[in-house]
């Protein structure tokens, strides 16, 4: 049974049916993307405010701010003009292990992408913000393909809500 091996289960994890908790589907899947794919997701011309948080499971201040991000996401997720996206910068081979386990443990029901584009950091970091040094956490806000805010730091819940309310 190759399914029982670690490698096998990781490869097959994507094909698994999402676990259903109550009526909400939590599949805690992590989609591995290149920067161009991510841009297509967060720079849509659909009047939505995209709140895009760059984080990693190993990043302490990132992990500290995530519970408040989840509270905010839960409060706004039914608003058709709001969309939160988490972009993990963990290594790609840990997407289905470390990252998924992290999301599952914390019951984080949010769209999570893993940006696997290490060798082009010097291109996509300045593409997101020319002043971004690459330190995380960092959060960028887009609407209709235009960046409206960028914050290279931990964000308090009140500040996050303030920014969201400004653009919703």
């Amino acid at each position, binding site marked *: 049974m190759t399914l029982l091996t670690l490698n096998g289960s990781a490869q097959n994890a994507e094909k698994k049916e999402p676990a259903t908790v109550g009526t909400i589907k939590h599949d805690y899947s992590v989609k591995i993307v290149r920067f161009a794919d991510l841009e297509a997701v967060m720079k849509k011309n659909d009047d939505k405010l995209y709140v895009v948080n760059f984080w990693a499971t*190993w990043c302490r*201040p990132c992990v500290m701010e995530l519970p408040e991000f989840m509270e905010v996401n839960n409060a706004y997720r039914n608003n058709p003009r709001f969309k939160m996206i988490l972009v993990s910068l963990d290594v790609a081979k840990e997407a289905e292990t470390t990252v998924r386990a992290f999301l599952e443990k914390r019951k984080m029901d949010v769209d999570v992408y893993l940006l696997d584009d*290490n060798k082009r*950091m*010097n291109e996509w970091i*300045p593409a997101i913000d020319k002043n971004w*040094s690459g*330190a*995380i956490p960092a959060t960028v806000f887009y609407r209709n393909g235009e960046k409206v805010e960028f914050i290279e730091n931990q964000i308090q819940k009140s500040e996050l809500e303030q920014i969201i309310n400004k653009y919703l």
Partner: protein
Amino acid sequence: MKKTVLIVYSIIFLTGLAQVKAQNMENNSELKGYKVGDVAADFKLKNVDQKTVSLSDYAAAKGFIVVFTCNHCPYAKAYESRIIALDKKYASKGYPVIAINPNDPIVVPADNFEAMQVRAKEKGFTFPYLFDDGQKVYPQYGATKTPHVFLLNKENGKNIVRYIGAIDDNYADANDVSNKYVEAAVDALLANQPIAQASTVAIGCSIKAQKN
């Protein structure tokens, strides 16, 4: 008459505002640290061997590869061997590595001085690994994350910042690196050539400080 007074008051008020704004901008630029071409300040920091190290101790050096790094950060760890390799390659050519841990150990106990001593010994660091006690040096340089490199070149007795950024373009796999940014920059200095890429960015762990 009333109107004139109002105008005069407005002018005084607006001038005051402009001054406050100008001061803030100055403070901000100080906080942002060095840009390529700036003169880097010397420092006096404690090394893992308990001795104090300053740039001025290195009379024969042509410059320095100053690396803000730490024990706990996975990016910093991924680069440890490559930082040792940089020192081995360039110290003899006049550009030694000076590593500085900028993190507050109260926030990250894994980055305290004793843990630095352990890590330096375990990995066999060939260069000083200094503790930015009181966190005065990293804001002056403008380091924001680990690892964060500032390549200094001695010119007319001053240490001029000639490169700021990442070590290379692939933290995850040393065998799949296409651009060795720091090596290219030091090689350019050694050859008296302009540095093609004087600054780069890469993801890193933010430097940990207590909130005021």
